[in-house]
């Protein structure tokens, strides 16, 4: 496998970039694997990578019904942050943040991880009280977080309308300087390439149609191209997790909703940080290409259609224009919807199940991208040891029976 480097780029330039190796193999499935991961998005590929790297299990397949990173990994707004309120969630997301910080180097793949800072605006007195509480909680958990005044916010984001008579006056913000963005596709491709290098089979265009269970133990998966045996199966299928659970008569506390986002035409640089506002359900950043990346809130109803209602786009754009009047005549280029699996407490499920050898990693809802490496890391440990990773333990399925919920609606509500 080629090691990517500046020198390599120069060397390949001499041959007009015509001799690059394929980034990963395209193998036929074997008869039996130690672990099968269902779902080849960021979280699934990260799980396979950490299983191979940290737990020495290399007889792994990732089975994907479409192509790698083609679901929600390709459909988010690429924001990374870890300023969650409750200890359990904060520790999990901060774990991911620490992995992000060294990930490009570790994977030998440029994830374009940019710690440009994330602002969460406060527009009302109650917003500001919540922000101060969350920032204090973050600091107690060792997560960098600050409360900024209106003036400081204005200095950071000159194009933001901070006038006192604005429709949504900015009273201040929380600021996580280590937050930022990462290139979403590169995250999937980087993990895929690194996992493939460690011997993981990436099997695309092969939809799982059933999970075979004998005497309460998982035996493998039925796919469109036949049965593949496995000692353990990890399901990482986001919005379609409920469909997988139904195959083994397992019920999950999930609801799948469309979540929409959009990008504008490319512009000259005008925004060098991430601005989010829970209050108006809108957030914006500018990609390296120059597009304004704008995210909305979820559509209220259940939906598997990968599209939502126009009224959501309209209200999000209305809010964005109130906050950034300068972009009022910018045209939108593309718009999309992803299917997010929301949990009643806005926290994920990383869990064993009553079926031996079957594990679920789902329920990330509107904010899974930022957790990609952390999610894969703790889920890999949970699968390898058949015992929850300490950081994953609070996120087990039985919290909906015991009542020990982790109510992160405040910090997770909108911020994806």
């Amino acid at each position, binding site marked *: 496998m080629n090691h990517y480097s500046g020198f390599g780029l120069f060397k390949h330039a001499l041959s007009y970039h015509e001799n690059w190796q394929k980034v990963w193999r395209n193998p036929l499935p074997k008869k039996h694997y130690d672990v099968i991961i269902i779902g080849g998005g960021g979280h699934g590929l990260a799980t396979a990578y950490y299983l191979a790297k940290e737990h020495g299990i290399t007889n792994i397949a990732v089975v994907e019904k479409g192509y790698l990173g083609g679901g929600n990994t390709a459909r988010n707004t690429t924001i990374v942050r870890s300023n969650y309120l409750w200890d359990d969630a904060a520790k999990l997301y901060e774990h991911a943040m620490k992995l992000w910080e060294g990930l490009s180097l570790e994977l030998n793949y440029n994830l374009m991880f940019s710690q440009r800072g994330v602002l969460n605006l406060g527009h009302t007195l109650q917003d500001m009280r919540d922000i101060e509480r969350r920032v204090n909680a973050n600091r107690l958990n060792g997560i960098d977080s600050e409360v900024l005044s209106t003036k400081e916010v204005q200095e950071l984001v000159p194009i933001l309308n901070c006038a006192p008579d604005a429709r949504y006056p900015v009273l201040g913000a929380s600021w996580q300087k280590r937050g930022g963005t990462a290139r979403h596709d590169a995250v999937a491709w980087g993990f895929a390439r690194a996992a493939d290098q460690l011997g993981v089979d990436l099997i695309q265009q092969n939809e799982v149609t059933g999970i075979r269970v004998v005497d309460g133990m998982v035996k493998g998966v039925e796919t469109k191209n036949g049965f593949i045996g496995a000692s353990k199966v990890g399901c990482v299928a986001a919005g379609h997790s*409920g*469909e997988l659970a139904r195959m083994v008569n397992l019920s999950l*506390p*999930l609801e799948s909703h469309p979540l929409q986002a959009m990008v504008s035409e490319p512009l000259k640089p005008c925004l060098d940080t991430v601005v989010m506002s829970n209050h108006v359900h809108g957030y914006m950043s500018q990609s390296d290409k120059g597009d304004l990346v704008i995210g909305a809130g979820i559509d209220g*109803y259940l939906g*598997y*259609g990968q599209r939502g209602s126009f009224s959501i786009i309209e209200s999000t754009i209305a809010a964005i224009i109130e906050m950034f009047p300068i972009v009022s005549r910018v045209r939108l280029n593309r718009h999309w919807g992803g299917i997010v699996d929301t949990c009643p407490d806005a926290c994920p499920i990383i869990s064993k199940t009553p079926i031996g050898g079957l594990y679920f990693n789902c329920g990330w809802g509107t904010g899974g991208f930022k957790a990609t490496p952390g999610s894969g890391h703790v889920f890999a440990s949970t699968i390898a040891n058949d015992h929850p990773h300490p950081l994953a333990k609070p996120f087990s399925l039985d919290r*909906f029976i015991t*009542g020990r919920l982790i109510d992160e609606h405040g910090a997770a509500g909108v911020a994806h």
Partner: protein
Amino acid sequence: MLQIYCPYCAELREEQEFHYAGEAHIVRPKQPESVSDQTWGEYLFHRKNPKGIHQELWLHSAGCRKYFNVSRNTVTYVIEQTYKVGEQKNEEMAGETN
């Protein structure tokens, strides 16, 4: 944008007048204190979340402010039928569009 027929107002109105209120026909355990944690947890949190036909509650929040039931396909978003609270889906009508 969905267009929803409110069975109380007897009119087809735009989605923005309505509020989604979750799965329909969930029965609250009659004696909450006597059921197991498992049953209670499932009643509170576990949902069918089907990929296909779904019976759900909607609130006509900017209209008559009443709850009613909608039978809708969660993939195509086509609404099969809407019916009042306390009624059951008309199976003979399934497949038709209001």
